[in-house]
């Protein structure tokens, strides 16, 4: 039941070993990553109010603050004053290249930023300064959102029939329309058995009828162009049908209220037949991308630069969410965070690529209310403490809820917040589900003064649980970015509670592979606690992207992200409800219930949700942040004179 996650492609300033950070953050499931990635203040988060998949935002109703007003920084940052101007070259500067340019594998937020310009999906998140809208689902190539009312969704909730806009064109010569068959091919390509298909099929296998079978069959194909081509042209996914050139039909195994959400991911992009001539994301592929968006990749030098030009085949009338204001977009790679910041501040560049404002610069920029900076909620929970419930260490102490509950009091969340830049960039979190995700509702079962921890209470509870002499816990931590700081902070906190934390540094690949996701390691007590993080792959209606992967214990096994082997019938039932129910309120309620249950069982210590500080030059107008890429939407930006 895989989900996917992405990397927020942020790289720490001057990161010696910038690449270490990169590697760590690229570790599959999300976020936990980058050191300078940070959360915004409460205000922005509360305003976000949680997105939802449907037109109605059920999540927002549960959020503690309903206000949709934006903070001054965010408003100022958009720079929407004046009317759009066409022309100009947008200069983007960043550090490293995308993970994959092909939508079958592209998984970094940076990749999403770029893909927004030259790929299109059936549905999409609109660019909006209203956080709720920004995570809502709107039609992109599709003409409408399918509902039972408009006949797009069958009565049993299992069949989606989607009509395509007629005038969406590929920039082939001659230009030709994007067809339903192109979308079908896009889904077929997801199953390719090269390692370039990162996490993609997971969201579709088991959801769309026949997808699993298709992928299994595809897996046996020899990985070369001809065999792939033959396979894809001769085999079909039974649950995806091109009814005609402009109609596509999906049949699902079970009703899935979040299916439109899933279709907003770039994995669901249309693919022109030309792509059959290349292995997915091969070097040749990268030189021959074909665009149906407002821009196309005119030149690309791996690791060094991109040049994007306006796509002549693209029509504004065909695209409800994108624009084509710019005459060119140049991406230059290499400089690190500090240099990027300097260049944009100096006006020689306009926008960040994979970096953010250096954490240390934020307070000053914020103090001077610099209009070029904006701080945006990530809707993540990052990092947090996870317990290995199976650990035999300390006499299996961690399997006891009372012990874990005691430890919930130990953590000084303010201190961890400071590591990530303090209240400007993150907000303490006391439940599993962060804002912007379905089921979010603020509550706190383990209150401590100022969220700063209560060692005394922890100690007494621990003693009451039968461990007056404390515990000794093994804590694998990654060596990049802020991970060591977080580990050290936890170590200091737990020490005050009489718990000795023995940390040991591990490779990024081992952190999950050898420890968190390896049931054998868990059973042997190779680790007791760990501090991973989680960035949902989409927001709003996303039980499939938060609660299910983290706490559905029914699928526990190698590679599971229910790292601690938490398994609770109540939670499992709630997850099933949330995945299948078409009633947003019911989904929201089920998720909140699950959240309460997990927190009661203290399977998890939430720390905070983060925000990201972004920066652009003063030439940049209409800079609207997309939560999915944690960057400005380049298809909406326009530049003022010069």
């Amino acid at each position, binding site marked *: 039941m895989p989900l996917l996650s992405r990397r927020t492609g942020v790289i720490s300033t001057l990161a010696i070993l910038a690449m270490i950070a990169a590697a760590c953050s690229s570790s599959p499931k999300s976020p936990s990553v980058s050191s300078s990635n940070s959360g915004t203040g409460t205000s922005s988060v509360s305003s976000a109010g949680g997105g939802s998949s449907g037109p109605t935002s059920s999540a927002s109703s549960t959020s503690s603050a309903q206000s949709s007003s934006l903070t001054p920084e965010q408003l100022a940052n958009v720079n929407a004053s004046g009317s759009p101007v066409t022309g100009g070259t947008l200069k983007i500067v960043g550090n490293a290249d995308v993970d994959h340019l092909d939508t079958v594998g592209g998984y970094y937020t940076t990749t999403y930023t770029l893909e927004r310009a030259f790929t299109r999906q059936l549905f999409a998140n609109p660019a909006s300064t209203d956080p709720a809208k920004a995570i809502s689902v709107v039609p992109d190539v599709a003409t409408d959102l399918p509902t039972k009312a408009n006949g797009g969704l069958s009565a049993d909730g299992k069949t989606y029939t989607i009509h395509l806009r007629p005038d969406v064109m590929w920039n082939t010569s001659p230009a030709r329309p994007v067809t339903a068959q192109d979308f079908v091919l896009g889904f077929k390509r997801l199953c390719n058995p090269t390692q370039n298909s990162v996490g993609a099929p997971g969201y579709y296998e088991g959801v769309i009828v026949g997808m699993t079978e298709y992928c299994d069959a595809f897996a046996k194909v020899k990985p070369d162009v001809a065999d792939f081509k033959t396979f894809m042209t001769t085999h079909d996914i039974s649950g995806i049908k091109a009814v005609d050139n402009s109609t596509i039909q999906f049949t699902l195994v079970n009703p899935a209220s979040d299916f439109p959400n899933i279709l907003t991911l770039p994995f669901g992009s249309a693919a022109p037949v030309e792509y059959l001539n290349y292995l997915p994301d091969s070097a040749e592929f990268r030189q021959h991308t074909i665009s149906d968006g407002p821009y196309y990749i005119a030149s690309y030098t*791996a690791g060094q630069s991109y040049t994007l030009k306006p796509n002549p085949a693209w029509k504004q009338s065909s695209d409800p969410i994108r624009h084509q204001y710019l005459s060119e977009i140049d991406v230059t790679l290499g400089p690190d965070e500090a240099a990027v910041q300097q260049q944009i501040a100096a006006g020689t560049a306009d926008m960040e690529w994979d970096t953010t404002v250096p954490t240390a610069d934020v307070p000053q920029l914020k103090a001077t209310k610099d209009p070029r900076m904006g701080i945006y909620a990530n809707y993540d929970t990052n990092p947090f403490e996870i317990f290995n419930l199976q650990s035999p260490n300390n006499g299996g102490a961690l399997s006891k809820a009372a012990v874990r509950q005691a430890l919930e009091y130990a953590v000084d969340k303010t201190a961890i917040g400071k590591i990530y830049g303090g209240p400007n960039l993150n907000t303490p979190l006391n439940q599993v589900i962060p804002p912007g995700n379905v089921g979010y509702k603020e509550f706190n079962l383990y209150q401590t003064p100022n969220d700063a921890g209560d060692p005394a209470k922890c100690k007494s509870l621990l003693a009451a649980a039968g461990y007056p002499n404390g515990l000794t816990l093994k804590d694998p931590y990654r060596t990049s970015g802020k991970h060591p700081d977080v580990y050290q902070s936890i170590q200091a906190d737990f020490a005050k509670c009489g718990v000795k934390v023995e940390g040991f540094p591990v490779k990024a690949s081992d952190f999950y592979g050898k420890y968190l996701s390896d049931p054998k390691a868990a059973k042997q007590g190779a680790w007791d606690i760990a501090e991973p993080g989680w960035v949902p792959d989409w927001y709003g209606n996303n039980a499939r992207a938060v609660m299910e992967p983290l706490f559905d214990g029914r699928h526990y096994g190698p590679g599971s992200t229910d790292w601690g082997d938490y398994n609770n019938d109540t939670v499992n039932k709630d997850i099933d409800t949330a995945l299948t129910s078409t009633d947003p309120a019911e989904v929201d309620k089920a998720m909140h219930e699950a959240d309460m249950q997990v927190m009661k069982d203290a399977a998890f210590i939430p720390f905070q949700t983060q925000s990201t500080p972004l920066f652009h030059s003063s030439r940049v107008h209409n800079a609207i942040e997309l939560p999915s890429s944690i960057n400005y939407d380049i298809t909406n930006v326009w530049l003022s004179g010069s």
Partner: protein
Amino acid sequence: MLRFLIRRTLTGLLVIWLISVVVFAIFFIAPPNVAFLLLGKFQASNQQLVEQVTAQLGLNKPIPVQYWDFLVRLLHGNLGYSYYSHEAVTTLIGRALPVTASLAIGAAVIWVVSGVLIGVLSATHPRSIRDRLATLFALTGLSFPTFVLGLILLFFLFYKLHLAGIDWFPGSGYIPLTQDPWQWFLHLILPWVTLAVASMAVYVRLARGQMLEVLGDDYIRTARAKGLSETRVTFRHALRAALVPIVTQFGIDVATLLGGAIVTEQVFGLNGLGALSVSSVVNQDEPVIIAIVLLAAVFVVVANILVDILYAVLDPRVRLE
């Protein structure tokens, strides 16, 4: 000469082969969990896919077999493909090489020219103020770890100047020479200095020591007795003789530049071989690591052979056999 080349090439190949064995041995100690890194947490639970990817990469075979496959591929001039970018390792290295070459060559020019010059000037006036200053400079330079120097230069010459509104030195990044020579130069000044200082210090000492020794030699007395000018004695006679060991040392230093380049490239955000090597180490991108380690070893071996040849060119007494 030819015999010499053949012999040295063969022993060099032996060294390189041993190194490749050692590199493989490391992976033998702790085989990388590449499939996991590649597939991500969720896909990694898909055992079938893991096995598939592992098999694709040939990682399911015993290490000795993998090593054999590697050797066979190597003999076909194929260094393999990165696990991550899927680009040919040669492409990756080809892309990173100009950066490192720019960095290394520039730094080498700086350190050799200034190091030798300072060393010579200090040796011609031993125990003078300038000699003492040169020695102090040399020892101080020697004591600055590359990364500390890099950070300090960045802090003062980039950050502080930047705050003061002066942007003489870009903080980081690399502009290809072909794209904009001036920017290329500007972007590399601080890295060059960073990489050069420690070695420069060494060359000051080396040149000084060699010059002092040579200046005490009988043929320098002969040169003076011939009525030659002091400049000619210093440069034409003394430096010429002192140059032989300096050149030898230079060959060794150039060969081991990669170590310094790793740190410098990290500090200044240059995407050269150093950065590539570190990222591949962290990612356990075995084909890339092996290629870089071998490339570095080849470089050392070739540099050593070149040094020997140069030695013979510089010193007619040496015959290569």
